[in-house]
């Protein structure tokens, strides 16, 4: 399988007046392959967003390397950005622009061929069922409509890698379901998707492989079945609690398994 995202020993430190230097991400490594959804699961403040921001070249790591679609974020940030679409935790839409305008503008900003832009925008509007509100200012849209517009905006330039930071956070079940369907659909088109969430259920449902992160450390990675095997637990919630509490023993168990 083609390696689309390779992260090695990633560390990010922040300065905090009360706590001094804090490691938001601590020596994190993982690989994501073409056509898979890799879930980053962790509680709030675990380091998920910081990791994604470093992948999106918004932040520079203090240590470690990130390679996306064969480009190093430190050496070739512009090509990295061209190869990916980033969906932030909030809908992040210009409130006084309509979905059609936003999608068009992002196609232009990402260098999508001008002659094909209109066609591409209309295709996405139709695909995501945005037609009814395509010309309404986004400040007047519901959270669900905004998030769907955001996804369309993220993929408008057809990037091979997608970084989605809590894409269904704050949405009702029906809209969340719709978004999950869209994400799976994108995966079926061959995209590599990094999907962060603190919702165990959706990670279990959508992701091919899962990385559990807590206090900036990646506790373990694997498919749902592999995690079940390592922890001896069935549900994702139990697996997560077990991993957080028994981190050291799991690490040891993993080392032993790999030695065998």
């Amino acid at each position, binding site marked *: 399988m083609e390696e689309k995202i390779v992260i090695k020993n990633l560390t990010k430190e922040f300065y905090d007046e009360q706590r001094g230097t804090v490691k938001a991400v601590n020596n994190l490594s993982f690989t994501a392959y073409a056509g898979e959804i890799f879930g980053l699961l962790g509680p709030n403040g675990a380091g998920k967003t910081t990791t994604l921001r470093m992948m999106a070249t918004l932040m520079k790591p203090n240590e470690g390397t990130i390679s996306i679609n064969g480009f190093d974020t430190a050496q070739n940030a512009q090509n990295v950005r061209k190869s990916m679409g980033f969906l932030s935790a909030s809908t992040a839409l*210009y409130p006084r622009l309509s979905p059609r305008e936003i999608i068009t503008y992002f196609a232009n*900003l990402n260098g999508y061929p001008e002659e094909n832009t209109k066609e591409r925008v209309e295709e996405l509007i139709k695909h995501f069922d945005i037609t009814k509100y395509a010309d309404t200012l986004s400040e007047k849209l519901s959270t669900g409509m905004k998030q769907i517009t955001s996804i369309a905006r993220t993929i408008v330039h057809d990037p091979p890698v997608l970084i989605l930071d809590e894409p269904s956070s704050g949405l009702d079940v029906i809209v969340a379901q719709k978004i999950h369907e869209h994400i799976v659909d994108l995966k079926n088109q061959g995209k590599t998707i990094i999907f962060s969430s603190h919702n165990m259920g959706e990670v279990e449902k959508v992701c091919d492989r899962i990385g559990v992160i807590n206090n900036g450390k990646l506790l373990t990675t694997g498919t749902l079945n592999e995690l079940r095997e390592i922890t001896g637990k069935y549900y994702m919630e139990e697996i997560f609690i077990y991993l957080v509490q028994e981190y050291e023993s799991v690490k040891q168990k993993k080392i032993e398994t790999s030695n065998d």
Partner: protein
Amino acid sequence: MLLITKIYTMNTLIRIYLKDLLRNKYTTMMVILVPILLYPMLYWGITQFLMVKSGLTDNQEINLSLDIRSEKFSSIKDSIATIHNFSITETSNENFNKDGIYLIVTEVDSLPYYTVHLDSTNSIQKQFFGKLEGKLSDYYDLQLGGRIDASAYDNEYFDTFWIDKHNIDGEYETMTKILSMIIPLMSIITIIAGIGTGAVELTAGHTEDKTTETTLTTSLSRKKIIMAKLIATNIYGLIAGILNFTFLTFVILQIINTLMMQFAGKSFDFDWSLIFNIKVILITFLSLSIMSHMMSLIFVAAAGFATKRKEGNILITPFFMAFMMMSYVVIIPAIEPSLVISMVPVLNIAMMIKLLLVNDLQLVFFAESVLFSIVWMFLLYKLLLPFMLEEEIILGNSNTSLIKQIKGRFAKWKKK
């Protein structure tokens, strides 16, 4: 091809920002409504200012050209000579100039008739005129007494004292003087208001809405995004300035017209070419563009430290006040163009526009002002751009490495 693509993406970004700003009802209302509320207050203030008589110093002298056209009243010179610091020259050449007062004394009905030419916008001349008026009145009364004694007429019949006062400048020139004080001041204030609102919306507002974050993940460089914000802020400020400037000029002229109709019974036909000619428009626009770009740089940098619009407004307030104060200086008549003035940002451009409007083309001062403004802009770019590009500033966390260093040094100093 690469350059065309770069310009195209930059344009797209500027268009997004401008569209976002212009569609914002609240910011647009602020930019347009606030100055509209300010106009009446400012007009009142300036009228009051012009009416204030400045204090005279002991050694202040003023020239009085005395043109006595009736031998009968030659003794008036001795009467006027008692006024302290009046330098009297007898003349008959009718050479009216702004440097002094010209008094013509003629005879009407065996009594003195005075015609005075002075610069009514010169507060010192106005103050001397007050003293002169007293002496002229006393002299008239003296002559009137003699006339009453010499005739059998009733005292009431002669109870008239008349001074025909002429303003040397003429209406247009006085008007241009007033506008030359108000226009630089108001155009700068409205530009500051526009830039402030634009800067807060495009930096703190976009950080609050997280749109900066998503724009940063496109293939555009950070520098390009910051530059697009600067240019959009600059354009928005200039649009606000031009709109307000035009509106204000019309409002003021309308008020003056109404006043003239009320008190003088005639309408005021202002020669618009005094202000709206290519030379004035071009130089004013160019100088205001340089100044507004410099202001945009400072405001975008200051508001960039904020994560919310509210914080952004607080952060730009000191700069807003400072620039406004600088532009107020131009309405002080004693402030003359100099090398020092040309070095002071904002004030130099305000002074330049003021001079332009009264057709006083001091080219050396203009060149110095533009040059120093460009130097300021360059220095500010050097100083502020690295800050603005820092990831923690651009993403809304002001704990930058430089601030950390400053804090660290301060903590060490405190320990010592």
